[in-house]
């Protein structure tokens, strides 16, 4: 555990320094504001309609596919790091795992989940 302490220290440091930078800028910069200046930027026009509009469904599909592939890579990483100690059997097992995933990948492709129309 002790070797991860620098990471924690640096995380706190990063937050601290970023806050100091923003804080210093608060103190140093001018503070003259008016109503128009504080309105949402939209190329000089008044904003039309709500900002959080509907988002294309494709983005959700991308996110779901990412989850599947990312979890699979999570299994691949520990396998790769002990690769030297494994026999051929260990490799064949992972080959079968990847082939099963690949069938799913081809299915997704054929179903048109990767197409943007």
């Amino acid at each position, binding site marked *: 555990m002790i*070797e991860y302490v*620098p*990471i924690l*220290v*640096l*995380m706190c*440091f*990063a*937050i601290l*320094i*970023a806050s100091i*930078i*923003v804080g*210093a*800028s*608060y103190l*140093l*910069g*001018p*503070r*003259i*504001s008016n109503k128009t*200046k*504080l*309105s*949402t*930027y*939209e190329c000089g026009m008044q*904003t039309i309609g709500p*900002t*959080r*509009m509907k988002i294309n469904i494709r*983005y959700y599909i*991308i*996110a779901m596919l*990412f989850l599947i*592939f*990312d979890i699979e*890579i999570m299994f*691949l*990483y520990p396998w*790769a*790091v*002990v*690769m*030297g*100690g*494994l*026999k*051929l059997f260990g*490799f064949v097992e*992972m*080959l079968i795992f*990847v082939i099963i995933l*690949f069938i799913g*990948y081809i299915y997704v*492709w054929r179903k048109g989940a*990767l*197409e*943007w129309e």
Partner: protein
Amino acid sequence: MEQIVSMIGWKTAKTIAGLVGVLIFVVFNALILTWAERKVAGHMQRRIGPKEVGPYGLIQPIADALKLLGKEILTPRAVDRPLYFLAPILIFVPVLVSFIVIPFDASLQVKDINVGILVILAFSSLSVLSILMAGWGSNNKYALIGAIRSVAQNIAYEIPLLLALLPVIMMTNSFSLKAIVEAQKGLWFVFYQPLAFCIYFIASVAETNRTPFDLPEAESELVAGYHTEYSGMRFALFFLAEYTNIFIVSAIAVTFFLGGYQGPFLPGIIWFLLKSYLLVFVIMWLRWTFPRVRFDQLLNISWKALIPLAFINLLLTGGLLKL
């Protein structure tokens, strides 16, 4: 000084010195890169670039930083305040933490953690969160669209990026960046794994949102993408994170494929910085060479080309290692 060292122990003192060094390096690196970006852009378009402030315009980035410090920090009325305030601060965390495990030289590394590359990958995927916070919190259409594009792009390119690093880990049986560099004493891994290097490089350009994959901040359609509503030093923090990220992806490429700090005659740190900044230069060069791709093309490059190629490369490497 010696009293403090003896009080907290030699190792702790070294780590603290490393942490301070990292902070100095991050600021210095961002200053150099903002200058280099404009200089490279200038010369590629047969202009001179910055030249007024200091010799060859070298003081220009410091002048810019001071100017930004004196600018007013605007907080538009419509923003979601907690998210809007936190995003620029949180984006600073992953870029700083990644430096802990990067080996600049055989003995110049803050901490050689045995899961080094996992630390970098885990933290770099956190930056997606702060981008989404910035885009959602700004309550601005440009920012929201930019953030969503950025997240979709980052997660689509994370898969080929992770897969391209795997063959190297299989060859070295280690997650420690130092062990990976040491394993390249003979021949650099780029000669064993040219395809993996290409995939990694393309994916890392996309991960840093650089042209030709700069759709999240496509200035002709989205103004500035997810940091449209940020001004002054908050904007500068996003900028700082972006330029530090460019260096980090180059440094990982150098560590994994180009022999890290290994090289003849010159000391290791010089080799490391030379190779890293060469890759940074290539990334800047790409910006002035290629037009921006369309968004469906962007995702298709990843899903239909890079991912299958990376899988085939991975299995081929595994097969060759075992047979």
